[in-house]
């Protein structure tokens, strides 16, 4: 047995141990979640559930509130993403191309919403929303989500735009394209991977957002994460597990789709200050 480890080398063994720790750390909770979701009866100290069942799936999916919240969550996420694109892409382009005074300060200010404890920020926004009559409205929920997504949607596309070289835009002007055509046929398609990544982040972020929605959207606008909070507190953990899986699925699907575009390059360049 020892000869085997010797042949393998110390380095490889350490790498393997690290990998195992890593896998347990990340995969362990997920495995537990999946087991729990299909459990009928599971009592300590058994390693595996004593009986399996789909009862909690039926229960969760039969609840009107749950199905409604899934639809609402996706609708809100789609609207938030679309609005963020409309607001942030022109801003990102401006940050990348136009030198204006304090441009770095402005870009930096988009980080501010992430610098405070979220709840404090939401409460102060809620005060404002009360005055404006935005509490318990669709628009209010969308706005509070956008507060979170501004940073992704400006920083990442801005760096994507910066990676389009001046010569590439000028070549297009030179062969006869107007500034608008240059943007549409050259700059935008070249920045598209970065914009796609930012949009997926925005979509997932909105899908996951619970605190702000809870504060602003209750009682009429209960999204998936908000409903999950109440299910976790009102029903056994098995119901929570089922719901978690439902909540995780779109994330996994979107991330797999995003993998095509997400490269370390796009990601790291998204957070450079230039």
């Amino acid at each position: 047995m020892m000869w085997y480890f010797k042949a393998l080398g110390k380095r490889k063994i350490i790498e393997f141990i690290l990998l195992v720790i890593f896998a347990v750390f990340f995969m362990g909770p997920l495995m537990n979640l999946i087991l729990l979701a299909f459990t009928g009866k599971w009592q300590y100290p058994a390693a595996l559930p004593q009986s399996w069942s789909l009862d909690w799936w039926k229960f969760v999916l039969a609840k009107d509130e749950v199905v409604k919240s899934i639809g609402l969550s996706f609708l809100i996420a789609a609207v938030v993403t679309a609005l963020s694109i409309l607001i942030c892409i022109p801003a990102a382009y401006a940050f990348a191309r136009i030198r204006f005074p304090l441009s770095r300060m402005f870009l930096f200010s988009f980080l501010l919403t992430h610098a405070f404890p979220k709840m404090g920020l939401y409460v102060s926004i809620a005060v404002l929303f009360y005055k404006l009559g935005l509490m318990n409205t669709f628009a209010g929920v969308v706005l509070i989500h956008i507060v979170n997504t501004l940073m992704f949607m400006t920083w990442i596309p801005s760096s994507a735009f910066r990676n389009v070289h001046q010569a590439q835009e000028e070549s297009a002007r030179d062969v006869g394209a107007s500034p608008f055509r240059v943007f549409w046929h050259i700059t935008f398609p070249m920045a598209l991977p970065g914009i796609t990544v930012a949009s997926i982040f925005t979509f997932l972020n909105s899908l996951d957002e619970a605190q702000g929605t809870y504060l602003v959207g209750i009682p009429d606008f209960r999204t998936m994460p908000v409903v999950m909070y109440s299910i976790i507190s009102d029903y056994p953990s098995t119901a929570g597990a089922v719901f978690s899986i439902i909540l995780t699925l779109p994330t996994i699907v979107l991330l797999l789709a995003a993998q095509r575009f997400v490269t370390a390059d796009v990601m790291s360049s998204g957070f450079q200050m230039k």
Partner: protein
Amino acid sequence: MNQLSIRSLTKRYKTGEGVTDISIDVKKGELVTLLGPSGCGKTTVLRSIGGFLEPDSGDIFIEGKSVLKLPPEKRPTGMVFQGYNLWPHMNVYNNLAFGLKLRKKSKSEIAAAVKRVLELVRLPGAEQKFPGQLSGGQQQRIAVARAFLLEPAVLLLDEPFSALDAKLRHELREELRDIQASTGLTMVFVTHDQEEALSISDHIVVMNGGQIEQMATPQEIYDYPSSLFVAQFIGKMNFVKGVADGGRVHMGGLAFDNTKGLQGEVAVAVRPEDISVIIGDQAGDGMAGTIHQVMILGHYAEISLETACGPLKAFLPRDQVRDMYAGQHVQVNCAKVLCYPSA
């Protein structure tokens, strides 16, 4: 009529750089090079022609019409940049076809034109490749092809080969000259590489500090640089001090005609190939010197000399240096010298 006329072009930047009162005429079918060190304003002139810079004053005429008011997309110019010319999300065919599509050409017309131009730049069948799959030299060829495809009145090249290695640069230089000869396209070429300028140009415009130093054929610029700057910038050159005295310029025991009528101390420039070296220390009509070093550089040799007027370098044919060695006493003579007021 001139294909391209630049009239007293002036453009000043806040940094103090820029160009002042530049006037250049380019005839149809000529290749004119703007040559100078970085910051001399050559790119400013080129970008003004292409429409990417708005000059402070002056005018630019292409085929007799002022283009100053036109945006880049309306100007009859084609531009090739130093790099990042191609659009990585389009294949070669679409890169080339982009301009033609904007001009609403038919599909079959575009396909035929693309095929033809790819053969011209020696990359037939590259239509489906993406820029990322091409080497640097191939990318620049495609960039030239794209600018060329739209049959511009003037093709502008902004150091198009400077990012490539020496051998490839040499090759592309020849190809560009071939294309130019076979198509009669008018070209303005910007470079800081004097060898490149000498080898491809019909005319060279040497620029320095935002102004034109000399405008002439490569031969003339090499043989008769009009200023000390041009003499320093173009080719290898020896510089020594001399004294002008009436009709003669004296330099370490040698004397030459004072053709420019200079006074007092002058700067004398001598091309290394204009220096002759004879072995021996008997007093002749040359000036005495000592060989410091002999370097064989292929088909010729570079001899470093110590003379009465300072160190000199001479280029000699291989067969003349067979018996030369460091420390040897020699007689040095100059076939031709150029004199300038000393700086």
